[in-house]
């Protein structure tokens, strides 16, 4: 009986295992293997060479670009967390009617009805030198000349990232907040806790798993992105994703693979470290 139940378990897990093995593990393994290969301008040569890693780890560009990637990730994480938490808190605790709550939550998802590339590109005419934002600022007399740093700058990159990714923070935080037992808040209030104390001692600790899931989404999306950085910085700044995409464009697959493996390792390390703080599975 035990054996057959065991078997049943394996069988049930088999389809997912097969899909993950075929579409996740195998490609990553391939990338890992290719990262040791060598390339000329138009061909790749199977080999076992550490040259790609050696070049990558000794080039100042790599560190510059990784630094930039971390800066973007940190800024975007902070902003999406701030906005996401506030919105989720408002939806979960301030809105009393279930119907209103769902309507408002759906409102948050409306931008997702269009492709994220379009949502991103639509910022360009808005923020441009002669764009709506500058026209408004000038007609209000706030500035005399168009503000240049609105577009093709780190500002516009971060703005687009925040716009694209905040929902990934809102949803999981909202979800965990909805499961918080309201009697805990009442108990805290009965015991004399102030609003701020309830927030820091009850709600934030209990929302951590949601925050963590949102963090993983946002970090993974921002660190792996290249197109947002390219469009919104006007190709003027580079993150790791752009380094990889440039390599691919120039047929340097082994070097692109090596960079990808390093990026993957870095992201996994960050997520691993985050997981030590919060046990996500306990809360799911």
């Amino acid at each position, binding site marked *: 009986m035990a054996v057959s139940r065991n078997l049943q378990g394996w069988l049930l897990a088999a389809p997912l295992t097969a899909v993950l093995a075929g579409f996740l593990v195998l490609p990553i393994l391939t990338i890992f293997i290719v990262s040791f290969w060598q390339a000329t*301008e*138009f*061909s790749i040569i199977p080999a076992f060479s550490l040259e790609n890693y050696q070049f990558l780890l000794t*080039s*100042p*560009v790599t560190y*510059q*670009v990784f630094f*930039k990637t971390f800066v973007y990730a940190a800024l975007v994480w902070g902003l999406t967390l701030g906005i996401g938490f506030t919105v989720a808190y408002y939806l979960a605790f301030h809105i009393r009617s279930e119907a209103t709550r769902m309507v408002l939550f759906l409102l948050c998802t409306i931008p997702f009805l269009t492709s994220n590339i379009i949502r991103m590109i639509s910022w*360009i*005419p808005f923020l*441009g*030198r*002669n*764009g709506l934002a500058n026209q408004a600022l000038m007609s209000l007399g706030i500035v005399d000349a168009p503000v*240049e740093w609105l*577009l*093709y700058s780190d500002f516009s990159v971060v703005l687009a990232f925040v716009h694209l990714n905040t929902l990934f923070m809102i949803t999981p935080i909202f979800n965990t907040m909805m499961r918080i037992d309201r009697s805990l808040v009442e108990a805290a209030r009965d015991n004399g806790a102030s609003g701020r104390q309830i927030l820091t001692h009850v709600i934030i600790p209990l929302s951590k798993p949601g925050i963590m899931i949102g963090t993983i989404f946002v970090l993974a999306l921002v660190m792996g992105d290249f197109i947002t950085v*390219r469009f919104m*910085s*006007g*190709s*003027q*700044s*580079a993150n790791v994703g*752009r*380094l990889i995409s*440039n390599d691919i*464009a*120039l*047929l*340097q697959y082994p070097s692109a693979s090596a960079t990808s493996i390093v990026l993957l390792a870095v992201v996994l390390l960050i997520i691993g470290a985050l997981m030590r703080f919060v046990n996500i599975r306990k809360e799911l």
Partner: protein
Amino acid sequence: MSKMRYSRRSILKSGAAVAAASALPAPMIWAQEIKNITLRQFGTGVSNLNEVGQKVKEELGFTLEMTALDSDSVTQRAATQPDSFDIADIEYWICKKVWPTGNLQAMDTTKIKNYDKIVGIFKDGKLTPESVVAQGTAPNTVGFVEGPGSTAFAKEQTQWMTLIPTIYNADTLGIRPDLIGRPIESWAELLNPEFKGKASILDISSIGIMDMAMVCEASGKIKYGDKGNMTRAEIDQTIAIFTEAKKAGQFRAFWKSFDESVNLMASGEVVIQSMWSPAVTAVKSRGIPCVFQPLKEGYRAWGGGLGLSKSLTGMQLDAAYEYINWYLSGWVGAFLMRQGYYSAVPATSKDFMTPNEWGYWFEGKPAAEDIADPFGKVMAKAGESRDGGSFYERMGHVACWNSVMDENQYMVRKWNEFIAS
């Protein structure tokens, strides 16, 4: 003689049928098979036009499938997947990279009907007998090989051609005359602090580096041995000058695709930048003044051609020759010239253009009446003339061809540093 000479249409044309019947045992079988032939062509968007495919179907009877890719993907595919295409529409510098892989086969020039009329640039490198061959990967330097199976380029014209030239053009800087308000005469203006935050350059390393070199040379900062084949020191110096300018905020953005360059210019984000001829036209067609400014140091030119996959044989190969001969016979050339490019055999295209069009596009004369592109959109009003003038005026002032350098990989790394800086 090729079996393909007898297409179904020509056979149906009375007398030819008799000749065909005597020359070929079963002409009608060939005719059926021609319809079943499909040639797969891929290349950059410039010349991969559906109109050409349709016309081929009408005039030659077989099917031409076209795939448009960016130049990096084109290079990659030509180099790594010879069985995925029959005809590669590539640029000459791509040919220099790809030919050594042996994935393309040389073409017998004796089978090319209009070979004699092909512009000199693609044969001995000289537009006119007095011309000097420009720097970079000039088409004649990679245009021929010694024999059918050879992977090394020949120094002189031979019977074996690598690419049959199709289109080419001379590029320069595009400017917004209304926003600049004074004449621009030199490439050096791209780094003029007057245009701080309003300049742009293209982020395609192999072409961008050439534009950079034109600028550095024009401003007298660097003297190059060969701009198309720089030494490491020259690359370092060039990139250093532009990195400094970038840090000082000279550039508004860099562009990678055609549309981006059009939008940068049309929106007024940028007033001076590297540009391609059709992009200038696209800006103009929105009613915004834009000039493809001829500069005293000359143009950066590029050229493309059709190459045959080595896996083409028999009927397919005959069809490919048929297609190439048709390509050079004028209709396509005229179609492309109406968009501002040049045809490899201008003489044949003349018959397919009105004297007004020919005068405007080729001879640099003021338009007698409005000039429309092949899709009917007005490109120039009566009285206007083409930026840069006539064919000889423009192609005679080429300073450098798009190229691939010996130090290409080093250059690419430096380029990445420039972008990341």
